[in-house]
């Protein structure tokens, strides 16, 4: 079967923000709804513990600058978080209005509104602290690394961020969906944050060989390398043209400002949020998209609101299906799958599946996106002396210090892949711990 690869020009509208910036009027009306709860449950639900009732009240009184300060003092990436956090399961999910069966406060968008005000007008709240003479290297310029670098600079340390890609931002720049956070958003945010005075060295991947010098030149090192490439399925045909990993597909999409080629018919393999993102992005580029997942919708890792978004974009879901081979001459033409049945789970974990014999069937397609999770950066991490890993995740103590006392770590590299806001929280707290570790005598 022969289907042509269709070239889609990015239509601005397709990738428009699904949660656009609030107007002043919208923000003031929404802010006035907040009850200003005592010991507010929304704060507890925010991994960075932003004083939400306070910043919302500040928006209401039109002290938007004060609102931005309240946010940034807990979460310097408050703008990306306001845009990309799964608020439905975090702050907004905890808002007391849910108990009244009323729409919770639109916290994420209010947060985006206030932070945008400060960034657009270049209103800054933090300065580089009095020099301590200590030097710290941050490996990885993602949310964890940037948050850590900012806080350390505030304490007066000399910080250099080493970033492998040509732009910092990590998955904020190369991962999250562009209809949540655009390339310009990411760029502006990084410029704003780094004005405090830390260095970012891009195109500067740290390898095993760089470590000895790094350890010699710096007093402490923070690891914020995130995760690695998409895990291969290890099935036949995975190397055909038109087969790609989801993170690589999205990297490409973001890097090229959504101006990429897409297959006419796309099959996405996986059940998590990354699978959904890749599927929605493909659909927005004009493809007919099917997601196949080996279990059922109940076991699916993706958030309900993300699944809803995919359905709204015309993505088809097919459950209890496993891929067997990807077929084609040179480039992909179809994918052969089998049906599964669900077996009762024994250990209380996800239900087991069993392949149904002789159930093979073929789905024609000209692009396959694999979203079966990301690999860990095991090779690099193993090259660091005494660094203990647990299932590929770096082991840290309460203060984010690793088993090699000079190294601290945070973000996806320690939690195996959570949200931006978790990475920001880790980076901030690790910075506090590094400061304490280095300044034990001085402070």
């Amino acid at each position, binding site marked *: 079967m022969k289907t042509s690869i269709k070239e889609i020009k990015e239509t601005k509208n397709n990738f428009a923000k699904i949660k656009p910036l609030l107007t002043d009027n919208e923000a003031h009306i929404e802010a*006035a*709804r907040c*009850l200003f709860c*005592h*010991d*507010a*449950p929304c704060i507890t639900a925010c991994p960075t513990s932003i004083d939400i009732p306070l910043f919302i009240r500040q928006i209401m009184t039109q002290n938007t600058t004060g609102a931005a300060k309240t946010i940034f003092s807990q979460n310097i990436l408050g703008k990306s978080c306001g845009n990309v956090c799964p608020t439905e399961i975090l702050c907004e999910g905890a808002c*007391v209005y849910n*108990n*009244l069966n009323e729409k919770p406060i639109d916290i994420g968008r209010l947060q985006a509104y206030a932070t945008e005000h400060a960034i657009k007008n270049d209103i800054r709240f933090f300065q580089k602290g009095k020099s301590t003479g200590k030097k710290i290297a941050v490996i990885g310029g993602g949310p964890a690394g940037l948050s850590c670098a900012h806080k350390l600079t505030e304490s007066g340390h000399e910080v250099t961020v080493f970033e492998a890609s040509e732009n910092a931002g990590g998955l904020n720049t190369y991962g999250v969906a562009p209809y949540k956070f655009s390339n310009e958003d990411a760029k502006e945010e990084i410029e704003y944050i780094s004005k405090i005075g830390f260095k970012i060295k891009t195109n500067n991947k740290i390898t095993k060989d760089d470590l000895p010098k790094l350890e010699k030149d710096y007093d402490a090192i923070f690891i914020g390398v995130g995760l690695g490439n998409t895990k291969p399925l290890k099935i036949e045909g995975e190397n055909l043209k038109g087969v790609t990993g989801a993170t690589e597909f999205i990297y490409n999409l973001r890097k090229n400002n959504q101006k990429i080629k897409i297959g006419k018919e796309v099959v996405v393999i996986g059940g998590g949020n990354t699978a959904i993102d890749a599927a929605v992005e493909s659909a927005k580029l004009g493809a007919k998209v099917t997601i196949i997942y080996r279990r059922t919708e109940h076991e699916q890792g993706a958030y309900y609101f993300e699944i809803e978004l995919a359905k709204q974009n015309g993505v088809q879901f097919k459950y209890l299906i496993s891929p067997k081979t990807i077929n084609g001459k040179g480039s992909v033409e179809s994918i052969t799958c089998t049906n599964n049945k669900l077996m009762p789970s024994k250990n209380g974990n996800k239900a087991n599946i069993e392949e149904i014999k002789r159930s093979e069937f073929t789905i024609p397609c000209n692009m396959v996106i694999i979203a079966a999770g990301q690999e860990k950066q095991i090779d690099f991490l193993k090259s660091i002396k005494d660094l203990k890993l647990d299932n590929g995740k770096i082991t840290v103590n309460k203060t984010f210090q690793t088993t090699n006392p000079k190294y601290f770590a945070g973000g996806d590299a320690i939690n195996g892949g959570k949200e931006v806001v978790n990475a920001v929280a880790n980076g901030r707290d690790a910075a506090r711990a590094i400061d304490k570790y280095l300044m034990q005598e001085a402070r």
Partner: protein
Amino acid sequence: MANLECNFAGIKSPNPFWLASGPPANTAYQVINAFKAGWGGAVWKTLGVPIVNVSSRYGAMSYKNEKIAGFNNIELITDRSLEDNLKDMKEVKEKFPNHALIASMMFEKKEEWHDCIKKCEDIGVDGFELNYGCPHGMCERGMGSAVGQNPDVCEKITSWVMEVAKKPVIVKLTPNITDITKAGLAAQRGGANAVSLINTINSVTGIDLDTMEPNPKVAGLSSHGGYCGPAVKPIALNMIAELTNHPDFHLPISGIGGIETWRDAAEHILMGASTVQVCTAVMHYGFKIVQDMTEGLSNYLDSQKMKSVLELSGITAKKLRKWEDLDLNYKIIASIDEEKCIGCQLCYIACEDGAHQAIALLKNSRVPKIKEDHCVGCNLCSLVCPVESCISMINVTTNKQKLIWKEHPKNPINIAIGTSLKR
């Protein structure tokens, strides 16, 4: 179905809902539309020697998402000629002979009052309202609330009017006075047939913090204006009740101030009004609001098994007493409905920081707990709770007899008597 028809001091109308004197009752076009929509009467925009108005003229007090919690104006009386107004009023009366049409007026000289009253009676108005209440502009000219604030002048002018008026005369009272009963009794002495209250309250609704100009702005300046709208209802309710409860005051009352719904109207009536007048709410929403006002009031009367507005009038005024008549042994305490509670803890922080530290937080729950032995029954928590009927105030039986302040042992008078007895 209750009958909403009214006979107010001899002025008949199909229902007690009248347009108050103001912009909605300025022209025949408007009043005809109002009557078509269901209003029972209209007090025409105050007649007088035509004036000139400024722009802008209105200000509002907004509260959170409520754009008009309170309203004010620096507008004067009619800016149309007496001839134009009379022509319009005549047209209305011809089209709607059974609706109440009341001429509001404000003059300086006795002859002016007399002249206008005669002209109005000639075209068939049903009554008069003497405007002693505009707090701005007119009183600087010796009219409006300047008259209303001085009982002797109020009585005098009323008596001038009564010399010629054949139709019932209502005196509209200004709230910009310490004791409203003084003004009401003066109107009664002057021979008035009824009073209406309240007119607007001296106010500045706010300031533009960028330009530091007060609102409403007139070329960088402003003037104090008359406050009205939802925020003034509590003041009106109290003043109406004060008149209703005064042993020497016997005139019918037309309630005005902050009426927007049938519920507001019912409250005015319960305090002793027998008709009501509305201005701001019509300026905000238009004439249509009267539909629900008439129907709602009628349903309410039915639910109370009452046949007319008069049956409702004044019931609550009797329950408004001097503080010293209240039972000091009556005790209530707060009680939280755990099912309804949404865990905002507003009640906790309000009581903790602003009242009596009578609410506790528990370790494993967002639902606060009332410390019953600390609760003084002040109501604060139930007022701040955002959930309807989640905190209720429960009556605690004390088995103690009613005890009022006059008899209370801590009353200095009783202490004095007690000690003198001992001696």
